[in-house]
């Protein structure tokens, strides 16, 4: 409990720093007025907007206003939607979650068997093949894999839809695209984690008791090998969401990524700011969850 409180309290300075980073980016390096106005705006328009946004005030007052808004969940109004930015961003969350979870499932289905096979048959043909494929998966840009899948599966074979989010079949290609990228990393992790566990004494004891190899591998080794894998994968939320942003663009998946890219092209700063905060908060919370799960899975870790 004490640990939990401490972790939650640690989120505050991090979120504060993120707000500072966003503020510096938008208000100091950039010029919100010219970002928001069309290029043929008159000088008068500029002055009116500057005053309306409170940008004629000293910088620290501006920051206080900005922070005040952030604390109330007010990131300003999207000029394209004429509504508050936060609800628009939150509305897109389910689609992105759906893609992220489906990709994780794909990754787990690929990575667990391959990682175990690779570790139990170290230096065999399969091991070389699997580790080689994992490196290849890391080297391949994810969006390119997506495009190639569209080319092969949708264009050549005409099997799966190219884009959209109408039914389950629409999810297959994006989930495979993002999932294989994660699987590449996950396979490598499971392999090295399994190798480490397989070399430990309790595994030798289990084998010397005469247990059959399948039980040794799955009941003794794999369960323990999973602990670091779960933690490291949960810490990859940031990578997962980043990957989802691009995958969504490739497949026109109507999630946060698509919203964000459109906002970037239209320079809709309210949406961009709200997205950064929502995503950052998600990442921080999932890292916290990872920490808790880790402590639950491995009781040897004591709360400080």
């Amino acid at each position, binding site marked *: 409990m004490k640990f939990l409180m401490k972790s939650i309290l640690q989120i505050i*300075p991090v979120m504060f*720093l993120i707000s500072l*980073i*966003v503020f510096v980016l938008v208000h100091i390096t950039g010029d919100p007025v010219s970002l928001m106005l069309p290029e043929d705006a008159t000088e008068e328009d500029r002055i009116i907007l500057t005053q309306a946004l409170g940008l004629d005030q000293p910088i620290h007052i501006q920051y206080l206003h900005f922070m005040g808004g952030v604390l109330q969940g007010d990131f300003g109004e999207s000029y394209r939607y004429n509504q508050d930015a936060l609800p628009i961003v939150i509305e897109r969350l389910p689609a992105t979650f759906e893609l992220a979870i489906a990709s994780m499932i794909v990754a787990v289905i690929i990575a667990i068997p391959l990682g175990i096979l690779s570790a139990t048959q170290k230096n065999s043909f399969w091991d070389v093949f699997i580790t080689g494929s994992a490196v290849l998966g890391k080297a391949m840009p994810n969006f390119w894999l997506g*495009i190639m899948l569209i080319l092969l599966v949708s264009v050549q074979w005409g099997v799966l839809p190219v884009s959209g989010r109408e039914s389950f079949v629409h999810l297959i290609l994006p989930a495979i695209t993002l999932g294989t990228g994660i699987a590449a990393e996950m396979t490598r992790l499971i392999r090295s984690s399994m190798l480490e566990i397989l070399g430990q004494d309790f595994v030798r004891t289990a084998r010397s008791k005469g247990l059959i190899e399948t039980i040794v591998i799955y009941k003794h080794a794999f369960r323990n090998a999973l602990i670091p894998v779960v933690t490291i994968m949960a810490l990859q939320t940031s990578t997962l969401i980043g990957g989802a942003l691009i995958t969504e663009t490739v497949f026109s998946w109507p999630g946060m990524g698509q919203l964000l890219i459109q906002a970037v092209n239209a320079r809709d700063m309210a949406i961009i700011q709200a997205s950064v905060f929502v995503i950052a908060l998600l990442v921080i919370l999932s890292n916290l969850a990872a920490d808790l799960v880790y402590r639950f899975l491995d009781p040897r870790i004591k709360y400080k």
Partner: protein
Amino acid sequence: MTTLGKTETSSLPASGRKSAGSGFASFTKALLKSKAGTIGLIIVLAVVLMAVFASVLSPFDPAKTNAIERLKPPVWLEGGSMKHPLGTDNLGRDVLSRIIYGSQISLLIGICAVAVAGAIGLVLGLISGYYGGFIDKLIMRTVDSFLAIPNILFMLVVLTVMGSGLGTLIFVLGVTNWVTYARMVRGEVLSIKERDFVRAARSVGAKDVRIILTHILPNIASSFIVISTLNVATTIILEASLSFLGLGVQPPTVSWGGMLSDGREYLATSWWVATFPGIAITITVLGIIFLGDWLRDTLDPRMKTNRAK
């Protein structure tokens, strides 16, 4: 390999140079022994040569459009010719020439961005690890904040605000990646500064700057080189992603990510436009990863994975 480790980590400023020749020889020998390392080196050298001699190697001007020869297929397909071995794109530009020129931007951005990231991360990591206290807390919380924002998202925001250009792109990629270095450097400094030779130096009155430069930096060098190499690979992919989203280098500068993005619209009829730049990225990144993994195993045996019997 052990002698190599010693020459790498020794901090002898002048006398150590002498053995550099033989060190280099044994280094090359060790590299050629590893299959993946050799393949990696060959790929990386090939890409570097391609970038340096782009104007000699490429058959056409990469920006030259040709309305008559639009979307010509590669040589082995019907309608293809040796004139354009990898075909042409929607504006009749030669795909092969564009891939050759594209290597310049990938390498340039990859290397420069890593230099920026490395410099920021090294300085902040050193300060954080060496001095500790409030400044350490501040830097580490900043690292946490950066880690909570996905790279691509951070870059999108900065590029929207600052506008994209070569300089901005390098800056953005550098600023995004500094956290990796800061964390690594800090961790190493924390363990090195407690070691006897650092204490000894301090007890004879060596100044902080001297301790950092002559005792700590040389001991970080190998991890730093390994991470930087692998980081070039990550940066090339990130740059390609940004160009794909339309926020990377702007035309007429050729970039692999940009080519991919152009080719996407013609996927149904002309698959080669989007396929070849992707292959170019994959092979280049693969080469760098091979080289980086080998460097890690050689320079820094502590970082070696899969140590189990």
